[in-house]
């Protein structure tokens, strides 16, 4: 299944605290990595969770001509996978058990497919280069390993739409590249990949498209080279910065805080 992800008039938030108000985006294309960026509290995670159907939301999110928001959870789970920022503490599961658990969450217990789920889980861990920690308990992993295990949990059902909330935040440089390459490879295979990325430089380096959120609304959407400009950095982040395009993607050097009255400054 392929097609764009179309977000129209999406309103979502938490009880008594609306975050997104009637957000409409240009179609998010399959085959691309789309980075969701913006300052703290811009609504990035809220948007991602709303797309995943985890928040009460109004509006439509169309994928392959079907409204994801109107689907039953089990049906949506076959199309969309969401990776939260963190795993809960104190879980007594090994990495592979957690990945199989995510794969079989909506399976009947006494049904078949145990062997197949285990094979898929191992294949995903192998692709992420962490098959060697398959039998390690989750609470004995380093921060980076935990994040890769969490990514494997999101990938194992092979969804058409992948929603990743800061997939590289706890990773060292080498694993950041592994994960972003994986994201690009998945996109190249026809998937829709949307990542919240805190690091603008990383987003500019790896994403094909960028959605910049500010105060729960769309600031701009497009290719990184056009989006990442001194103007955007001052408007959205409130910093003065220079942008260098010589490497083929925008590189940002932040010089100063621009205006103390803007949000995002501490």
């Amino acid at each position, binding site marked *: 299944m392929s097609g764009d992800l179309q977000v129209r008039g999406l309103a979502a938030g938490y009880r008594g605290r609306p975050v997104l108000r009637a957000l409409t985006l240009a179609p998010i294309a399959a085959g691309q990595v789309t980075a969701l960026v913006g300052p703290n509290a811009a609504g990035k995670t809220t948007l991602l969770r709303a797309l995943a159907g985890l928040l009460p939301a109004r509006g439509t999110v169309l994928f392959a001509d079907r409204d994801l928001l109107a689907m039953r*959870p089990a049906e949506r789970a076959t199309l969309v996978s969401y990776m939260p920022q963190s*795993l809960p503490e104190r879980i007594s599961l090994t990495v592979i058990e*957690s990945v199989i*658990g*995510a794969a079989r*969450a909506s399976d009947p217990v*006494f049904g078949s497919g145990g062997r197949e789920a285990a094979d898929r889980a191992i294949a995903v*861990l192998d692709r992420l280069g962490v098959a060697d920690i*398959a039998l390690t308990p989750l*609470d004995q992993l380093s921060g980076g390993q935990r994040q890769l295990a969490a990514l494997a949990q999101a990938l194992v059902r092979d969804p058409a739409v992948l929603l990743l909330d800061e997939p590289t935040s706890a990773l060292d440089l080498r694993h950041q590249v592994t994960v972003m390459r994986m994201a690009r490879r998945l996109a190249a295979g026809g998937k829709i990949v949307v990542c919240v990325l805190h690091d603008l430089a990383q987003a500019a380096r790896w994403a094909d498209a960028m959605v910049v959120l500010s105060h729960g609304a769309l600031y701009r959407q497009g290719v990184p080279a056009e989006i990442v400009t001194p103007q955007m950095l001052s408007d959205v982040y409130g910093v003065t910065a220079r942008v260098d395009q010589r490497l083929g993607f925008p590189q940002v050097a932040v010089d100063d805080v621009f205006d103390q009255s803007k949000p995002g400054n501490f």
Partner: protein
Amino acid sequence: MQEDGRSTAATQAAAAYAALLRRRLLIVAGLGALAVLAFLCDLGTGPSPLGLGDALRALWDAGAPREHVTIVWQVRLPQSCMALLVGVALALAGAEMQTILNNPLASPFTLGVSSAAAFGAALAIVLGASLPGVAQNWIVSADAFAFAFLSVLLLQAIARLRGSGVETLVLCGIALFFTFNALTALLQFIASQQALQQLVFWIMGSLARANWDKVQILALVVVIIAPFSLGASWRLTALRLGEDRARSAGVDVVRLRFLALLRVSLLTAAAMAFVGTIGFVGLAGPHIARLLIGEDHRFFLPASALTGAVVMAVASIASKAILPGVLIPIGIVTALIGLPVFFSLIIRQRGRS
């Protein structure tokens, strides 16, 4: 990394996982064997000088002495069966509760279900209050059951309120615990000397109240509910990965929580109605099982249930053996014997990680 065929690490992982599954199955089987062993020892222990051999002969052999047959069939066997069933019911309830509330301190005892049962029993014992149509000798059990069940329904109602998370639920459970304790204390205050004594004894928890009718009812409840608990294994395992991830994986978490609490309420209410408040098993059974076997709920739930059975059977033996000729209320024994074991396990685990 290879595109086709597995890497060495993947092949090793597959073999290691297969070995892990075998080990987990073996542990569950071992716990089952231990439960049977503890059950037999329990059967062979009692105030009358009737060892395991005599007890077994009384079970199978028609030519066994008549008083042996009576002791075994009318006293020991129902009590031993009750011990196993109560252990299974409370530990299974505790395991599900800890998972759906994401809190290792959750148990039927800590969240007020036992207090509610005690209050129900107090109403029956002190005021003689009863549900309509309940026979006289079932009033205490019926009231205890009704209040234990109601307390979990109350928790359900709170859980259904929009936006209340699991922390709210746990806090409300603790509030229920104190509320029902206070209400029970009030009834104790106004109770007659005789009723007070009866009530205090009920609250301590005792297997001496077991009879075949009660064993059959509790067995029926366990046999009907346990398959549904096991049937939710994958969903419960996924829930351990966090609510968002479970929901994203297709689990209807609200429904899962509702049904799990329903199962918890039935298991707990049925167990406590017949033996009084027994605290430790519902908390420790799942903890010990988790240390032994992890949280793949296909293994964790049966392991919790069997651990609960072992703990209760051992406590039952101890309650008869500590002071020869005296049957110490089992609620006291589970706490006294269980706690040191529990602490040592936790401290050992902390030391390892």
